[in-house]
């Protein structure tokens, strides 16, 4: 599985034709096919190319919304399963 640093993940922000990736609990998801991640932004408040582990804790949905998207890598030095 491909390893991403935070800097590498940051490139996948949906701009200039780049795919749209987000990280959660150490996994990198490709959400390019999601209507709700068009142009690399989600519901105004969230940007692609980032680790959204902490953001998901206060979101009005859980991680189940990510499960339908392919995992394309792991994030190095991520929050992982930290509380």
């Amino acid at each position, binding site marked *: 599985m491909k390893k991403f640093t935070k800097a590498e993940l940051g490139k996948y922000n949906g701009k200039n034709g780049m795919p749209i990736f987000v990280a959660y609990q150490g996994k990198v998801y490709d959400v390019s096919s999601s*209507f*709700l991640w*068009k142009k690399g932004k989600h*519901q*105004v*408040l969230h940007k692609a190319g980032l680790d959204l582990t902490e953001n998901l804790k*206060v*979101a*009005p*949905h859980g991680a189940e919304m990510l499960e339908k998207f392919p995992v394309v890598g792991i994030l190095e030095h991520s929050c992982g399963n930290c509380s």
Partner: protein
Amino acid sequence: MAKVTREMVERSGINVDQLVELLVKNAAAELTTYYYYTILRFNLIGLEGEGIKEIAETARIEDRNHFEALVPRIYELDGKLPRNMNDFHDISACPPAYLPADPADVQAILKVLVEAERCAVRGYTQICNMTAGKDHRTYDLAQAILNEEIEHESWFSEFLGEGPSGHFLRRGETSPFVSKFLK
């Protein structure tokens, strides 16, 4: 634009541009849902579809009412709707509620309906969370819409066999919570 209205929201600590953008996206979701639900409702045919048609129609009209209620608030906060309706469609806060591949599959239509409502429940929960105790008018509006979206979700969830909704079909006028914003 209501200048002091916007200023009060800014002073409460809310990023008003972000809030307005969220309101516009949710208004887009409501109007596109009204359109797509028209198609879904027309395809709820046969014995199975007939039993759901009325409630789908209620949800459709109430979602249009939500659009009507949101737009004045957007403009009060110095926002605006996109000039181009295609652009408006594409910024919707929820995915399009497309007719399923098999339009005769009432269960599939119900799943589209329930997922659309669930997206709306999440969206208005988010807006309520942002505005509670800060932007009293937007909170009041978002909470009113949220109440109706929750009932919509519960109706369709019940039809999918997920348990009782706890609600009756509307008796009388639509939008019991949002109607005060439509006067």
